[in-house]
């Protein structure tokens, strides 16, 4: 269906025919090249599901077990495929169950089009069965939303929805369609993809003068430092980014959403930023003289205390979203635009350079971190397994070629810190919103988005229990995802904070779990549990080699902490190694 765009003019000129609003929805999906829809039927969206029945050969519908699972799956799909994820849900509770996923997609700039059913237009505002004001509930968590009450609007509005979701800084769009519009017959004049909305500017125009000024600052710098985020991946600018840092010779560190845009083994990749990031990138943020931020938004988990963040540095900020400039960190030079365009312009102007002494500082920091953290995490002396050694062993088996989907908490930080990646769009995690329960459904979608790749979900015992019903989706749709539960019998990250900042008052973090392996077996998913070091590698190999979904529970040390850590309210240079 990738040719949808090129074939559409023909469709647009075909003779008008009478179809229903629901058929128009399906037509739009086909024309937009959608192949997979994640959803759950219900009363107010039944006409669309009825039409979908006639499109089974062109549109694959994955029946999830909860609408939140559906939207997280669509997010996973979008993140690995680079295409817009699509979700169908019914009115009322179906629609409200999407809200967490919408908020997650909004803050992590994930392109989604969600279609919700709505009660008949004449019932709007009457407290009808399963009526809820979806448009107003979702306004703060959507890039755009719209309610359709007349079928004739469907083709144009859906074209706008896909255009808005996928262009510029991507985001979720929700279209609410009343049942009468779904049933209504109208004169369909074909589908015309949208490429322009007069009030919407997907990208700002690149100003050459600012690129030149940025290049001048970079060329005069003695200790330049690049920090990059998901903008590099969303812009499809991985090659342009690599070319830039290689020519300029600048060390580069990533946010957890920027992870995998640059291969882990790249000599200029100096690691992870932020609260649980690497030691060097945090400490040296406050020693660089020019800080070049590419497609990242200076989240508080990255910056720590703003008044202690890179005060000495001149800041160059490349971003497609003008509202990000100066939002948290004042930019000395703003370079607005799609980094796919701005990075090559910058590369052309910067001098070929290397900063061996400066890079050596990062290596020295890595050495300190190795002694204080890596050794204990990757080569522990205690009998108890660590999360880090699980990820490290997984790296050795997958050679960094797997897609890693993580949930939220300690395992997420450990996975992001230690997982190896060779290619982009390999790390799927809930970064901005920190949504527990994200990983299992997102892994399902990630697999549909990248069917030829190994997809491994790494999840904590707490987060897994938030959306474990999606094992049913895995069973029914035969989704070959690998699930690792890192089980420390605690809500580990909260417990870590309670240990460090609340005098070990372990309030409500001692979480009991079911027999995960038996649970998986009940869903027809194979699995096993390991707690002994000698069995770890074999268990991981068995999981990877298994043809089908697999659940591996790994019992890890109960009270292990994730370090380094920038405590809340501290500056990045105050990062603690233990």
């Amino acid at each position, binding site marked *: 269906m990738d040719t949808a765009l090129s074939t559409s003019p023909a469709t647009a000129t075909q003779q008008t025919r009478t179809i229903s609003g629901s058929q128009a929805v399906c037509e739009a999906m086909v024309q937009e090249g959608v192949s997979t829809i994640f959803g759950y039927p219900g009363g107010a969206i039944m006409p669309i599901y009825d039409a979908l029945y006639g499109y089974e050969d062109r549109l694959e519908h994955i029946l999830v077990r909860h609408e939140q699972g559906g939207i997280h799956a669509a997010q996973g799909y979008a993140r690995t495929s680079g295409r817009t994820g699509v979700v169908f849900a019914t009115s009322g509770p179906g629609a409200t169950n999407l809200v967490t996923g919408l908020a997650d997609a909004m803050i992590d700039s994930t392109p989604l089009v969600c279609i919700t059913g709505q009660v008949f237009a004449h019932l709007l505002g009457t407290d009808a069965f399963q009526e809820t004001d979806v448009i107003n509930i979702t306004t703060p968590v959507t*890039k*755009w939303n719209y309610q359709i009450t007349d079928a004739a609007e469907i083709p144009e509005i859906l074209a706008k929805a896909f255009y808005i979701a996928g262009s510029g800084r991507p985001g979720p769009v929700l279209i609410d369609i009343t049942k009468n519009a779904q049933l209504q017959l109208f004169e369909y004049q074909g589908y015309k993809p949208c490429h*322009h909305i007069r009030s919407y*500017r997907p990208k*700002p*125009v690149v*100003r050459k003068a600012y690129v030149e000024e940025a290049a001048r600052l970079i060329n005069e710098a003695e200790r330049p430092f690049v920090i990059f985020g998901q903008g590099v991946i969303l812009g499809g600018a991985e090659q342009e980014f690599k070319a830039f840092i290689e020519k300029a010779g600048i060390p580069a560190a990533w946010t957890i959403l920027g992870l995998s845009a640059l291969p882990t083994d790249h000599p200029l990749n100096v690691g992870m930023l932020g609260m649980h990031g690497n030691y060097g990138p945090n400490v040296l943020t406050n020693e660089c003289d020019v800080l070049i931020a590419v497609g990242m938004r200076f989240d508080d988990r990255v910056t720590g205390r703003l008044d202690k963040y890179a005060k000495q540095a001149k800041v160059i900020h490349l971003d497609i979203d003008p509202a990000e400039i100066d*939002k948290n960190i004042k930019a*000395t030079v703003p370079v607005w635009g799609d980094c796919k365009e701005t990075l090559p312009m910058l590369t052309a102007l910067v001098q070929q350079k290397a900063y061996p002494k400066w890079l050596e500082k990062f290596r020295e920091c890595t050495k300190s971190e190795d002694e204080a953290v890596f050794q204990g995490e990757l080569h522990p002396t205690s009998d108890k397994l660590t999360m880090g050694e699980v990820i490290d062993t997984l790296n050795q088996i997958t050679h960094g070629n797997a897609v890693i989907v993580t949930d939220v908490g300690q395992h997420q930080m450990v996975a992001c810190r230690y997982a190896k990646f060779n290619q982009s769009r390999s790390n799927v995690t809930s970064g901005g919103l920190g949504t527990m329960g994200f990983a299992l459904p997102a892994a399902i979608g990630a697999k549909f988005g990248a069917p030829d790749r190994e997809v491994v979900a790494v999840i904590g015992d707490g987060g897994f229990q938030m959306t474990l019903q999606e094992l049913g989706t895995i069973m029914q749709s035969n989704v070959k995802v690998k699930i690792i539960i890192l089980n420390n019998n605690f809500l580990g990250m909260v417990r870590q904070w309670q240990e460090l900042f609340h005098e070990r008052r372990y309030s409500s973090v001692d979480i009991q779990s079911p027999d995960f392996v038996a649970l998986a077996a009940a869903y027809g998913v194979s699995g096993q549990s390991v707690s002994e070091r000698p069995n770890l590698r074999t268990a991981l190999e068995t999981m990877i080699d298994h043809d089908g979904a697999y659940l591996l529970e790994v019992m890890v040390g109960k009270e292990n902490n994730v370090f380094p850590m920038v405590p809340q309210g501290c500056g990045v240079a105050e990062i603690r190694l233990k």
Partner: protein
Amino acid sequence: MKQEYTITVYTENQVGLLNRIAIMFSRRKINIESLNTSPSEVEGIHRFTIVINETEDVVRKLVRQIEKQVDVLKAYFNTNEEIVWQELALYKVPTDEIAEKVKVERLLREHGARAVVIRKDYTIFETSGHREETDKLISVLAPVGLIEFVRSARVAIIKESRGFHEKLKEFEETEPHPSTRENEYLDRGEDVFVM
């Protein structure tokens, strides 16, 4: 330092847009002092006039977020020195009282007011102006028994503005002219490079 800012937003005429804009203020716990929506000089383009009391830094960031909304064409923010504005006020007073105790003619002249309705039981005066001016008339009418009072939101014209017609033409082009995407930040190059 907090001061009064008037935000002018040019938008498409879309259901739900008022909420989308209003929640950007409430999310940041910013109180809207006054809000007016009206048609603009261009057919089909709506104009919001919003007054808030905030620091320039907060207003600047907020206006960028507003302008980012899909259905918003352009947003401006101005201090009171940069705009001409009016508010309309209506005053309902008992006719007999007012006829007896107030020199109505002088009152109307001094406050630029006019009588909109005169009935046996009540009279409605109307005036427009800045907050202080409409307030002043309250203080005169209150002693004789003000039955009802209402004041409209602020409407404002930006002194420097040359209207939206030309700008809209640029917006309607598929590839807009670079100046359409201008911003006060990029257009003040000399300020940007202060290090």
